[in-house]
């Protein structure tokens, strides 16, 4: 069977997978096809080999004399590079690389978050002994009022609600059940 019997769309997908710029779904699809079809497998291997060879090519360096010639042409302003220019050059170099600004940003963000999270400000205002005693006294009074209110609520619940509303009805219910079961 001839390779060109494969449809164009599939061939394009195979090539993209081989050159490593396909989507994930295409990658799965082509590899699945490669398992079931020898043609696809062969074609994928061919293109993968070529792609590896192309991507493995090394870049040649510019001949030194070209750089020298260029330097000579631009030398009039090239000889004196100020301190400020050096700083800017360093910044260009640092921020020209994506990883470095990302790292700097991450460190700064981490630092700011840490400052906010672990900051424990010490109280600056100091209270006198008399003020503290007064506060304690007021606190006790407040708690006593609350305690009394709870006590009153408990008493009224025991005496009125539990006795009159619940116990009576419960007794009446037991009485009725006894009558029904035992038969009076």
């Amino acid at each position, binding site marked *: 069977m001839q390779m060109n019997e494969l449809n164009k769309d599939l*061939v394009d997908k195979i090539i993209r997978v081989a050159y490593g710029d396909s989507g994930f779904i295409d990658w799965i699809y082509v590899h699945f096809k490669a398992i079931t079809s020898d043609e696809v497998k062969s*074609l994928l291997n061919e293109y993968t080999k*070529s*792609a590896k*060879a*192309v991507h493995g090519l090394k870049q040649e360096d510019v001949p030194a004399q070209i750089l020298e010639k260029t330097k000579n*042409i*631009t030398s009039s302003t*090239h000889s004196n*590079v100020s301190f400020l220019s050096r700083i800017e050059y360093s910044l260009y170099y640092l921020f020209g690389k994506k990883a470095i600004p990302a790292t700097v940003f991450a460190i700064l963000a981490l630092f700011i978050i840490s400052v906010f999270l672990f900051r424990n400000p010490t109280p600056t205002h100091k209270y006198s002994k008399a003020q503290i005693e007064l506060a304690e006294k007021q606190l006790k009074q407040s708690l006593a009022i609350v305690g009394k209110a709870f006590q009153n609520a408990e008493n009224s619940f025991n005496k009125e609600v539990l006795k009159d509303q619940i116990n009576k009805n419960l007794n009446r219910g037991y009485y009725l059940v006894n009558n029904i079961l035992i038969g009076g």
Partner: protein
Amino acid sequence: MISTAKFDYLIKQHKNKIYNYAVYMMRNQMDAEDITQEVLIRTWKNINKFNFYAAKSWMMRTTHNLCIDYLRKNKKMNYNEVQIEEEYHEEIADNAIEGNPERLVDKVFTDEEIKTAIERLPERIRSPFVLYELQELKYKEISKILDVPLNTVKVNIMRARKQLQKELKNYADERVK
């Protein structure tokens, strides 16, 4: 003075990209060296005219335009190549996958063979291929540099891959003979 620092940085970062692209486009080192030097000088002259982050595209576009000018002046551009690019038939590239694929798979190509095969590609599909596969530029950047629609870039890269496969198959066939 600031422009000197900017220039130094740009040269350091992009000089090899410019040179290698010129080599693939011109197919000879002498012309590639001339173009590289010209691009560097133009970069120096225009250093304050372009944005720092657009510099790479600017330099590559200048390189590409100079290559095209050189090729036209020296009449190195084969007229037939242009026609092939415009009316490219998919069958041409698809023929590359005919025959015995194992024969191609089993061969390991040298760097020189690969480079020659790339240089044999027609200009219009060679330039996006080199920029994408070797210079690792993005489709969008290539589209700006070559001043062609994004889809054309993608299509031409695909055509170049198929054509390259055909060229490599020819090498494999020659070896067998």
